[in-house]
């Protein structure tokens, strides 16, 4: 096992800021038009400079890439387009040298239909790997199970002409589900995790965890047997690789997600999926209601656990966890062009979603960084990259990182025609207008601002681990909350409105404290017995440190 250059103290993930990267999209070192690990390693200076202290890598394993790597064909290797295992190890070492932890993605639920396990499994009914997947002679089992990719799949069963039977798949039909009732499968998947942990990775983002087990007359989601499998993996991780992070990808309501934390013995972190669309909704409605409502419904989690918060990621802005009325509203306001819609979501990046409005981008990032949870920044959103909804599937938000205004935006020296994806070229979001190089040189660029807020967030542990208490000022356009950890108290006030707002905050319990604005370190008047009056400009937010001096 490699010596770990980064000490994995308990709860490290709580104070982290995670940067989500797809190797393919980030930087191409060998000039073949596809991003790779050597390219990524060269860009770690930038990641370090941004201030984040963890990277989440999307799948980089050998794959036919029919689902951008989520269709894995070999778990213990690196896709040849992205480099070699040695390249990965080198990248990992450099990241650790820079104090950046690396979380890799593991798709437990299914493999590619090109995975050798599946090829063997389908080859004959007697094959030893036959039971590694879920087979059936009919397509009528588990009828109560929803179809996730409604736009492309008619059923969760697909007919295999080779073995003349149906196989179960919750995602695309080329992604057969593994059979977790089979102990051999569970053992092999642990071996996969062990392989990467021995190389030194700091954690796993486990994809599609609610779907591991199928049972008749259930939704085949969130079943007790699935939790038992997760608890078993967690136990092994804690025993053999303490400090390793397990992050759940489970697009569920908070109450349904809560069991994935168990008694602190399942996942360390889980994505808070329902919060994200409600942040966008609150912004458009100019009303805190959707945000406070979902956080009120969010159950408490064990002290060692943490929510993972994000604004955008590699998938569509999912609207599965909203009501029909809310979904219609989101579509009308954020995806009027039907090309922007995919499945039950919106395939757009942060900046275009917010009309490239710098104030709204800052406000949303301000909320992301100050709410209870570990924030994730999707690559490119820190410079305001755009998207291309005409690329199909979710590829429009997976375009090459824009490093400069030069050749291919600095992403690759290859001929532009040979890039894995066309870069964004339009005059507003194209790499000549939006790129790292130019924003590095501008102190007031979005990138510079992001570095500043990340720095403040990282230097304020209360954001990572503190409690939250919402204030409910009568002005519903104001989202205000107090974060507290030990003796440190932070007041956050967000104006969700496009107009200036006045708000009176009931801060009597903090009477005698002065407020220190955390970005400019300016002092605001002392809190007295009267309601504390603040005025905020359009989409403005304040972070105040409370000090009793």
């Amino acid at each position: 096992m490699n010596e770990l250059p980064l000490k994995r103290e308990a709860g490290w993930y709580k104070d982290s800021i995670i940067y989500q990267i797809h190797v393919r999209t980030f930087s191409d070192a060998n000039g073949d038009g596809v991003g790779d690990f050597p390219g990524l390693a060269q860009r770690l200076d930038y990641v370090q400079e941004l201030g984040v202290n963890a990277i989440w890598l999307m799948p980089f394993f050998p794959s036919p890439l029919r689902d951008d790597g989520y269709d894995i064909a070999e778990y213990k290797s690196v896709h040849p387009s992205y480099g070699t295992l040695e390249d990965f190890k080198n990248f990992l070492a450099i990241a650790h040298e820079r104090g950046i932890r690396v979380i890799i993605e593991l798709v437990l639920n299914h493999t590619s239909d090109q995975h050798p396990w599946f090829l063997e499994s389908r080859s004959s009914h007697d094959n030893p790997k036959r039971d590694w997947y879920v087979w059936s002679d009919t397509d009528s089992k588990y009828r109560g199970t929803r179809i996730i990719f409604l736009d492309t799949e008619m059923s969760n069963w697909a007919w295999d002409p080779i073995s003349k039977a149906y196989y179960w798949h919750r995602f695309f039909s080329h992604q057969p589900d593994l059979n977790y009732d089979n102990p051999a499968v569970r053992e092999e998947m642990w071996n996969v995790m062990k392989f990467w942990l021995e190389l030194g990775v700091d954690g796993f983002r486990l994809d599609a965890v609610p779907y591991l087990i199928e049972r008749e007359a259930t939704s085949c989601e969130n079943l007790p047997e699935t939790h038992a499998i997760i608890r078993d993996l967690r136990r092994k991780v804690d025993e053999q690789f303490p400090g390793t992070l397990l992050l759940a990808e489970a697009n569920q309501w908070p109450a349904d997600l809560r069991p994935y934390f168990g008694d602190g013995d399942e996942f360390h972190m889980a994505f808070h999926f329902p919060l994200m669309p409600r942040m966008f909704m609150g912004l458009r409605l100019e009303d805190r209601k959707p945000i406070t409502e979902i956080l009120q419904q969010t159950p408490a989690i064990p002290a060692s656990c943490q929510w993972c918060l994000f604004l955008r990621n590699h998938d569509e802005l999912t609207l599965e966890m909203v009501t029909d009325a809310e979904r219609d509203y989101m579509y009308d306001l954020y995806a009027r062009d039907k090309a922007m819609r995919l499945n039950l979501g919106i395939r757009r990046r942060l900046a275009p979603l917010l009309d490239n409005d710098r104030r709204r981008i800052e406000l949303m990032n301000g909320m992301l960084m100050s709410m209870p949870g570990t924030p994730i920044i999707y690559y490119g959103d820190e410079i305001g990259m755009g998207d291309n909804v005409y690329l199909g599937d979710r590829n429009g938000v997976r375009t090459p990182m824009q490093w400069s205004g030069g050749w291919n935006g600095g992403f690759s020296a290859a001929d532009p025609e040979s890039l894995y994806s066309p870069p964004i070229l339009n005059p507003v979001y194209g790499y000549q207008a939006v790129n790292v190089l130019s924003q590095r040189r501008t102190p007031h660029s979005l990138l510079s601002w992001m570095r500043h807020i990340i720095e403040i967030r990282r230097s304020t542990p209360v954001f990572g681990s503190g409690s939250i208490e919402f204030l409910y000022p009568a002005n519903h356009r104001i989202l205000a909350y107090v974060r507290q950890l030990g003796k440190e108290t932070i007041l956050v006030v967000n104006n969700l409105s496009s107009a200036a707002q006045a708000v009176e905050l009931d801060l009597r319990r903090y009477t005698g404290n002065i407020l220190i604005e955390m970005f400019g370190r300016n002092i605001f008047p002392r809190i007295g017995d009267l309601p504390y009056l603040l005025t905020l400009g359009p989409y403005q937010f304040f972070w105040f440190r409370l000090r009793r001096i």
Partner: protein
Amino acid sequence: MAEETLLTDDFVRQLINVGEVDLVVGLCTHNNSKTIEPIVRAIQAGILKCFPRERAAIINADGGSQDGTPKLVTGASIDDVWNASKVYALRTLHAISTTYARTPDPSTALRTILEAADLLRARACVLISPDSTTIEPDWLQHLARPIFYDNFDLVCPIYRRKRSEGVLVRNLLYPMTRSIYGYRVREPYASEFAISSRLASNFLNQEIWKQDWSRMGPEISLTITAVTGKYRIAQSFLGTKVAPGRSTADLVSVMRRTVGALFSSLDVNFPVWSTITGSEPVSTLDGQPEGMPESLRINRKHLRDMFASGVAQLETVFRSILSPPTFSELQRIATLGVGEFNYPADVWAKTVFEFAASYHRSVINRDHILQALVPLYRGRSLTFLLENRDGSVESDETREESLCGEFERLKPYLLEIWGNGK
């Protein structure tokens, strides 16, 4: 000295918290605790159902209730609406209240709400009566949609009424407003209506509030302002309206607020109405006025006696108000027994116009003129109720149209007597 302000600091603070909205639903309350809760719930349901995406606020202007009405308005929980109708609120729905005075004043109440709506930049303001126990959530849609989507400035209601209700509107306010101002607004004195920001702003800026007629009857003055200002007016069918029970004393005050305001409006608007002939229909949405068949129990003797004794007792007053032929005709009618009693449309229209002209010239105290009209109105009511009892619902409409025709036909007579005495 600083000018007196209409909105209290506390109310302004509440308005700041509400912020900009698209829709204000106003209530002018005074001791309405018995009816207000279901009405507020219906309003909430209407907003959630019909305007789920619009920013809305319920604003109550209270005239010094002693029964806790304001708290019932502000405390009505949206959760009840959710539980009852499963209509989900996308955004916060504020309900705020202010006590503008210790005693009710309809003019100040309406002005408070319109000023608040103007401050909040509401595109539409809907007024709902705190007595409207038959309100349905759809009323908001019927009233506000024409303003939001069809650019109307004033949307007046049309109701399904019992045939015995709305007597004053159907016998005086509607026909006279129609003949004077030339628009067929069926409910010119509406307790429910919607108004655009454009009209509200104009109404507030014209300082109409300082004029007697507006203070007396703010609602009818709003209609008249819309008519004389050539604003786009529509009327929308709401459904059943049940009139709250009123005492005789109420009738006098209603006369002041309605007929008094209408008569007063003629003074300032003479240049406008004196040139209008005939009348134009108004866009009518979602249905036509409906009468509900009912078995009427009319105390004919009582009404006839009130009329006859009024004609006898107020002879001196009537001789200063009415022309000799008209008064003679009333005296003749007063001799009729219950069985043959009839106060015909042409005589009624002439009576009303002569009262209006006398009111204009203030031949006696104006309030006395209005009070003198009450017994004559009783007589006309008796004729109206008898006709309605015996005829079909369809023939009600024909008679109403005929009465309006008489008012329009006699308008030159009003002009003739307007400045000249009887």
